[in-house]
């Protein structure tokens, strides 16, 4: 009897193992393209307004095409480690969203579907040239530029007024944007007026935003990498940008927690009124509108030798191994039609990538009064900036940049040493 019981227990244990392992089959987590002939998996991160807009557009595409799109919204923090693991295990979604900086990593490793045959010359010409270049690698497009966003300077009008800064003197267009000197004067005036625990402004270069430091380099008239990958950052312009941005910390114009490696983000510090001004992307306008319990507006970024801002925004790409290349291409084409892009950008306060929608063609849903500043700011992006920022080496350069800027801003590393280290890191990353 005991022996029978033991045998039964052994069989039961084996059965449990089998069941457990069968359950593990779902650990891949990705959509994959094996659900059926007319099903696409689409993985993205999304803010609340982005998710609602994407759900509407997906439903519209399903109605028009008869296909099914499985929309998988994941937290941004997990997005690319998930995609990397899914690509490695051959279980990637058919379509996913990717920022222009990361796109180069995937396209250079032949992980994305080549869309060369999917767009005619006229269709390509409909996009802002710099952004079409952002999705291209070796002359071939590996995605569609879905939207862009740029940073501008948002200001707390109450805090500025308390510091004696007249709102009527604030710049509104690129033509009357503050110079670096004027911006420094405003920061110094705010520093004098504000208590020690509040700061004049904060820059949005934390964590993944570190490449936004390049805006200051470009404003100084500098560049960081020539077309052949040779580093160019160790220059008088590079020194000017580094010295100016280092002075933000030395003069206590920015909170000490807001370094490139810091984990406290610019928009949080602005919303909680720790800072009077903040550099933020237009995609944060809905959040600012919701959270800020004070009057605020947007101003152009300061300029030095020229105006410049960061290249935000994202592309939509299909994976090279998708089972549904035609359907995936059709979906990507649908998402960048004028109508779909207009709907998405209006709902999310993001900027279009089609030239036909530039200017005032889109009626933004939230704070339409501040959006012209962002639209105007986008015109300061030059193709040469885009070429550098979308290099496949950018992800690696960004890591070195975070380390070196942190050393310069916090640990007192000299300008010469910082630029020399950045120069070496860029050369290593680009293989030049």
């Amino acid at each position, binding site marked *: 009897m005991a*022996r029978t019981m*033991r*045998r039964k*227990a*052994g*069989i039961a*244990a*084996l059965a*449990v*193992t089998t069941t*457990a*392992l069968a359950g*593990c089959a779902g650990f891949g987590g990705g959509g994959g393209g094996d659900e059926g002939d007319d099903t696409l998996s689409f993985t993205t991160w999304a803010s609340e307004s982005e998710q609602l807009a994407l759900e509407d557009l997906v439903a519209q595409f399903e109605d028009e095409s008869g296909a099914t799109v499985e929309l998988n919204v994941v937290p941004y923090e997990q997005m690319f*480690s998930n995609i*990397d*693991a899914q*690509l*490695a295990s051959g279980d990637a979604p058919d379509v996913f969203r990717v920022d222009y900086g990361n796109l180069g*990593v995937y396209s250079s*490793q*032949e*992980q994305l579907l080549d869309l060369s045959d999917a767009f005619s010359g006229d269709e390509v010409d409909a996009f802002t040239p710099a952004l079409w270049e952002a999705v291209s690698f070796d002359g071939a497009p590996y995605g569609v530029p879905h939207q862009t966003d740029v940073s501008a300077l948002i200001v707390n009008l109450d805090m500025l007024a308390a510091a004696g800064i007249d709102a009527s003197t604030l710049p509104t267009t690129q033509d009357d944007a503050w110079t670096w000197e004027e911006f420094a004067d405003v920061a110094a005036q705010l520093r004098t007026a504000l208590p020690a*625990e509040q700061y004049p402004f904060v820059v949005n270069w934390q*964590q993944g935003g570190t490449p936004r430091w390049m805006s200051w380099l470009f404003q100084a008239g500098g560049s960081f990498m020539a077309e052949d990958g040779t580093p160019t950052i160790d220059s008088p312009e590079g020194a000017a940008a580094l010295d100016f941005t280092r002075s933000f910390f030395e003069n206590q114009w920015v*909170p*000490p*927690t807001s*370094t490139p*490696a*810091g*984990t*406290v983000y610019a928009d949080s*510090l602005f919303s*909680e009124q*720790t800072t009077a001004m903040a550099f933020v992307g237009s995609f944060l306008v809905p959040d600012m509108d919701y959270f800020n319990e004070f009057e605020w507006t947007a101003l152009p970024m300061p300029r030095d030798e020229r105006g410049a801002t960061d290249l935000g925004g994202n592309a939509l790409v299909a994976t090279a191994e998708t089972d549904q290349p035609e359907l995936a291409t059709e979906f990507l084409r649908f998402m960048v039609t004028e109508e779909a892009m207009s709907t998405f950008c209006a709902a999310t306060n993001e900027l279009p990538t089609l030239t036909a929608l530039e200017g005032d063609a889109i009626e933004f849903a939230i704070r339409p009064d501040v959006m012209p500043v962002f639209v105007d700011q986008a015109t300061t992006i030059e193709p040469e900036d885009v070429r550098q920022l979308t290099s496949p080496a950018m*992800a*690696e350069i960004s*890591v070195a940049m975070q380390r070196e800027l*942190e*050393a310069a801003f*916090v*640990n007192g590393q000299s300008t010469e040493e910082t630029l020399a280290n950045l120069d070496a890191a860029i050369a290593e990353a680009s293989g030049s």
Partner: protein
Amino acid sequence: MTQAVAHAEGVRPGRVRVRPGQRRARRREGLVGLGFLAPNLVLMIGFLFVPIVLAVQLSFQETRGFGDPEWVGAANYETMVQDPEFWRSLANTVLFTAVTVPIELAAGLSLAVLLNSVLPARGLLRTLIVLPMVISGVASAMIAVILFYESNGLVNKVLEAVGLGRIAWQSEGAPAMLSVMLVAVWLRLGFNMVIYLAGLQAISPELYEAARIDGATRWQQLRSITVPLLGSSTFFLLIMNVIASFQVFDVIFVMTGGGPSGATSVLVTYAYRNGFLIREQGYGAALGIVILLITLAFTFLQWRTNRSRDQVG
């Protein structure tokens, strides 16, 4: 070996004879035993041993995780030796371990002694101390972020309210390290207390009674009875705490991300950063192998040197 077995069974050498029926029974018993072991064994092979072998293989490659990997031999390990950030992360891990483990042991023992005595609301207090154990580490760390938020977190608000200045929890290295240590101790205190409580309840009350009759003070009872008789629990907790400290990740990842300026970067956060954020998966795997070796070496040393290991349990 055969002799040893024979002696152990109380049978003289040369007289061991196993009947066919017994052999069958033993084989059947062995199979049933294997059946019971199988679930764990299969899962351990699938989710522990195979990944370790793959990680070793990965540590000799240069790869982003996708695309074609390149075999680079020991290059990742050579890079590690020359990488100042690796040495800094290792030093931070050792510091974190050296500070948190003794505090966890001492505080766990103190709380266990306190809550083993007659105390009002003893059950409630025990539950409160153990509670952090059952909350996800990430959720606890999120709570800690709100507490230690530099510009307007609760801790700094309280410090200001009582007339003390703000502490730069997020922008200066030492306070940042202190904040993650405090949270790690808070999270692990309950586990230490529970193990010590179990150990305390296994000590015969007669020993304390005899000591009291001999005139021993409370402190002498603690030093001469409680602490020595809890040796096996202390040994178990020491190993578990050291391993946990060497593998600390969630608290630091959520609270400081290894910053400011790498001041709280430990081996696992540095490995994660390389493997998943920078996409240097080969180097990340090499760091993981080093963490495994350090942990194994410490465990081995402890087992070899601790004389009271046979008393465990």
